């Protein structure tokens, strides 16, 4: 048996369509079998509610008198992109306020507009013969605009990696707060309730398909930016009219130490046309895998700590290296359920008609990293290899002499086995002299917790370490634990003299 989209739409119009939430589908299929489920269910509704940084809206403000060609535009002091046409702008959710920083970003402006609040529009221009006006500053509500059209370039990830952090300090990331020593795991996505996992071959999900977007009836434009469905990371580009949206399903947020972002409620209704749709929508959290990535490694290819299923992530604990680690989600499963329920009520009440894609997406496609021809400089390119070191048993006086002679401010301290055990600076020695009686040997006064780098670390990352720890040199230790150089702020200075750009 097969059902046509027309048949399903007729049932929707007549109020006879039966819709069920995606998380309920597996049990229905277990009970009725694939054929039975196909007969009984007309539409499966999906839903997700999570941080979607890649969100924003196009606005048309209408013309003022005299007219202005807005070259620069701010909405509540958050800059929008105005290089479009005279009175159009695109405001991105992650743009931060020029006066309030990340605590109020583009996302907050969008939420304010949807809430019905007035937003202060400020614009600048050089002035032209056709657009003589140079400045403008007014209050606008969403109703005062000709269009407020949300466009999310990349939305509704098929799956996303979960995050943990093996370093010894807390990281503040777009995946939330990550505690040191893999103290927690954070993940995003609604698992079996998310849209694409219910149609991984993108057969039913594609351009032109009507969706639920922040409470409004929106539409899928097509493949999202960076879409990589070939390896399980498909994304969607979506749009919807902000006038119809509700703050119930659109919320601004700020991740400490990272940025502002927008929480977007999105759901795709999937018409149950044939047995393949039934089988795909019967997916369970146990079947959906992702990996836990180590966000402590600041590289593009973050190491995977292990594979997990959404069922494990949602359980609240995951075992990592023999220990139970708490998991928590950034996206709201409760809200995702609300989205799918709302969509279900739209279908069953005849409010929403369904459509098949006007154009299919390429499911083989994978996204590739930046083609970066200029190799970024590594620590070994600029580190100082003429090492002056000292052993931990030597006297402070010897260290002082060596520092004076060695034209350096940092003396790496080695133990008997030549391993790096500390660092002594001119400051440590002055301190020791000033407060005499602290000890006589290097090991009494050295800094034991040494922050170090490796020869292959990117200079950017090493610089970040210097800044974060407020220090001026880093010992360079190779993979065998051997000290091979020292990187100082002076070496970095040379790098820029040579014309390398960060």
């Amino acid at each position: 048996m097969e059902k046509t989209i027309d048949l399903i739409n007729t049932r929707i119009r007549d109020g006879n369509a039966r819709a069920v939430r995606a998380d309920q589908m597996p049990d229905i299929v277990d009970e009725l079998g694939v054929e039975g489920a196909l007969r009984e269910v007309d539409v499966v509704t999906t839903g997700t509610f999570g941080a979607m940084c890649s969100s924003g809206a196009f606005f048309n403000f209408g013309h003022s008198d005299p007219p202005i060609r807005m070259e620069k535009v701010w909405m509540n002091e958050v800059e929008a992109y105005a290089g479009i046409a005279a009175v159009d702008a695109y405001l991105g959710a992650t743009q931060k306020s020029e006066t309030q920083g990340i605590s109020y970003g583009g996302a907050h402006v969008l939420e304010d507009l949807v809430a019905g609040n007035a937003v202060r529009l400020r614009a600048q221009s050089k002035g032209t013969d056709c657009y003589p006006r140079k400045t403008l500053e007014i209050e606008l509500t969403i109703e005062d605009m000709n269009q407020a059209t949300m466009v999310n370039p990349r939305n509704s990830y098929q799956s996303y990696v979960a995050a943990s952090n093996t370093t010894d300090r807390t990281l503040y990331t777009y995946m939330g707060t990550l505690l040191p020593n893999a103290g927690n795991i954070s993940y995003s996505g609604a698992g079996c309730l998310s849209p694409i996992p219910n149609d991984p071959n993108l057969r039913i999900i594609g351009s032109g398909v009507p969706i639920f977007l922040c409470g409004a009836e929106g539409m899928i434009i097509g493949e999202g930016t960076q879409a990589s469905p070939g390896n399980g990371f498909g994304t969607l580009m979506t749009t919807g009219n902000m006038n119809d949206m509700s703050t119930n399903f659109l919320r601004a947020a700020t991740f400490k130490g990272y940025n502002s972002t927008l929480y977007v409620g999105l759901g795709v209704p999937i018409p149950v046309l044939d047995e393949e749709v039934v089988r795909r929508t019967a997916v369970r959290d146990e079947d959906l895998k992702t990996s836990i990535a180590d966000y402590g490694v600041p590289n593009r290819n973050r190491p995977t700590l292990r594979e997990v299923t959404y069922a494990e992530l949602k359980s609240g604990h995951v075992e990592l290296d023999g220990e139970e680690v708490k998991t928590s989600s950034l996206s709201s499963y409760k809200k995702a359920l609300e989205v799918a329920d709302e969509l279900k009520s739209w279908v069953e009440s005849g409010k929403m008609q369904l459509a098949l894609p006007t154009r299919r997406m390429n499911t083989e496609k994978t996204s590739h990293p930046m083609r970066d021809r200029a190799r970024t400089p590594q620590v070994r390119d600029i580190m100082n290899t003429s090492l002056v070191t000292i052993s931990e048993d030597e006297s402070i006086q010897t260290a002082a002499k060596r520092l004076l002679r060695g034209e350096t401010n940092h003396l790496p301290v080695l133990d008997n086995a030549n391993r790096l055990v500390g660092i002594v600076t001119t400051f440590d020695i002055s301190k020791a002299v000033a407060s005499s009686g602290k000890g006589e040997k290097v090991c009494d006064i050295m800094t034991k917790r040494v922050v170090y780098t490796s020869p292959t670390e990117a200079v950017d990352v090493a610089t970040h370490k210097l800044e974060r720890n407020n220090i001026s040199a880093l010992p360079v230790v190779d993979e065998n634990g051997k000290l091979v150089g020292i990187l100082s702020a002076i070496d970095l200075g040379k790098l820029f003299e040579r014309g390398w750009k960060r």
Partner: protein
Amino acid sequence: MKLLVTFSRKGVKQPLIAQTVKDTGVLINVERAFIESNEGELLIDIPDKETKIITDAMEKAGARVKQMEDSVIRDESECVNCGACISVCPQDVLSFNETWTLCIDSSKCVLCGKCVDACPHQALSLLP
């Protein structure tokens, strides 16, 4: 029972905790302490039934004592029940119930503030 004890170092001359333990015989668990040059704040944990005797003893010594019952405050209109606060809490104060709604068991809270930082919706605050 957790108690938040505030005292000025001028007003409280004797060693507050030691003296209270000595006078009452109740064992006190200090969970957090912020001691400034002229004032201090302590979060202590004691058996529920000893709340009154400890409160009285400390107040007599010049300290102010507040029972910590609803230390974690959630702004329900801001909270979206994402759960980003759950895994950062060292005390398992925060959890989901069966409807994926955030539940807070404040009695275990040690006021570390991690959840406040972790909430993307700025929905959490601690007892002032």
